[in-house]
């Protein structure tokens, strides 16, 4: 019982500190920019539904899913443990009688509602701003956005427990791997999480009017395989992060 109390305290502490961190204000920047874009673009006014759906989907794929979602995950996932490591306050947690596994889960679970809440909430809002085609796109792309978000959160937690400068590594991954390699021809893009998310989005959107991508540029895998890949990445990253955090001596704290 006392362990549960300690764990919920840690969960609440982590959530509260993340929520009121500078990251929250900063991630609102890209979210707001997207919203302003959608308002200016005015998808709801368009008459050609097929073309508009295509445009809306491409925006969601290449701006929201490929840029905003990983940036939001970086902001919170690296700050949850990485921030404590950087500030050296992790020490105060590691000398308490809370098993390291539970410390890790408290940090991970505190991050999830923030990332999922912001990403899903923003996605819902954007779909509303998209009018009819937005409403049609919402259920189609929601699973992909969800799976991508948790995959990013897990992966960046793995970076946070493994590397001293995890923010740098995560940002290199988010800005270089995801943006550059994720948009290169060939199979190199499979190193990017957004490849799997976009595969799911193509699989869901093509039957509803989304243009199929050029095969030489982007060959999507099936939605099931992509979803399994994302779940696999999530679980593998979580498991490795747990093992690392359980065994790691953080000599950089004092």
């Amino acid at each position: 019982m006392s362990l549960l109390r300690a764990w919920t305290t840690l969960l609440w502490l982590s959530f509260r500190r993340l929520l009121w961190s500078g990251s929250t204000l900063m991630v609102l920047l890209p979210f707001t920019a997207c919203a302003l874009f959608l308002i200016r673009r005015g998808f709801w006014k368009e008459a050609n539904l097929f073309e508009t759906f295509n445009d809306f989907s491409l925006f969601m794929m290449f701006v929201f899913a490929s840029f905003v979602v990983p940036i939001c995950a970086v902001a919170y996932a690296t700050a949850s443990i990485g921030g404590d490591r950087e500030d050296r306050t992790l020490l105060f947690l590691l000398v308490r009688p809370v098993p390291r596994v539970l410390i890790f889960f408290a940090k991970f679970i505190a991050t999830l509602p923030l990332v999922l809440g912001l990403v899903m909430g923003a996605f819902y809002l954007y779909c509303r701003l998209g009018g009819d085609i937005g409403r049609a796109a919402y259920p189609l792309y929601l699973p992909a956005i969800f799976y991508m978000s948790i995959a990013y959160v897990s992966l960046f937690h793995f970076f946070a427990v493994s590397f001293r400068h995890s923010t740098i590594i995560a940002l290199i991954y988010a800005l270089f791997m995801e943006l550059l390699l994720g948009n290169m021809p060939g199979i190199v893009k499979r190193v990017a999480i957004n490849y799997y998310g976009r595969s799911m989005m193509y699989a869901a959107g093509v039957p509803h009017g989304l243009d199929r991508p050029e095969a030489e540029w982007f060959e999507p895998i099936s939605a099931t395989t992509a979803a399994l890949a994302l779940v696999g990445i999530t679980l593998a990253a979580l498991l490795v992060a747990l093992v690392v955090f359980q065994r790691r001596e953080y000599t950089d704290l004092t």
Partner: protein
Amino acid sequence: MLLTFDQVTKFYGPVIGVNNISCRIGPGITGLFGANGAGKSTLMKLASGQLRPSQGEVKVGEHRAWSTEAKRHFGYVPDLNSFYEEMTCLDFVYVMARLYGLKRSDARRRTAEVIEEVGMADRSGRKLAGCSHGMRQRIKLAQALINDPPILLLDEPLSGIDPGGRREISRLLVAQGEKGKTILISSHILGETESLTDSVLIIARGRIVASGTLSEIRAKLEDRPLTVEIRSPQSRRLAALLVDEPELRNIELRPTGLIVQTRNPLRFFTFINDLVAKNGIEIEQLQTLDGGADAVFNYLQQGSR
């Protein structure tokens, strides 16, 4: 409750942090002294379960220090100046209390008690970001005392505290020691904690070079050169007589008397007794200048090189 190091060695890659250390630290206040880089912090980190020994075992009571169970039994004051800066002192200590699994009401009560104990009751509503170094040291001590642990591991707890505060904290630590708690205080300045400690561990280059009470350690160092000040109105004559003493290393004549350095203190004191009685020399004062903790420490440090 005992803190046990059993043949503990810790490597940082190719560098050795502590080397084959074995000791048992029991109730009372024990000072852990050593120069910077001697291995004090490594020893503290091993004891507080932040590091695992490369060889050997560190135990807190019956539990391995790395284990979660061991962490119930000690409070730790780290030698770092980082906090959740946005919190107030009270909030910080309260959260730390909750992390021990205390109920809200118990945590609140206990927080108020320890904040009072460390003398921060009137400033507990301050944000940690705006606290001075001394206040932060007190808050670190408060969070270590929060679960009333049988073992306290204090890494440089008095550094940065003003003399008045130091007296208060020292009284608090003495009271904790008298309750039968095991307290390990690390410091690189012996004078700072000399008066507090019942016994000391002196560490140099990752090894324990001496342990016991200061007088015990001093007694073991009989053959160590000793500096003695002798005040006498006949200091010139005394100096001339002392020159014949073979164990004498150096004599310095000063306006107030003599400063003598001897290789063999025991033999020197016997010799000077006989000399004074035989020659009727008046001695106003005879005192050893480097019998204190610092001198012992410096000597041991030099010896370990």
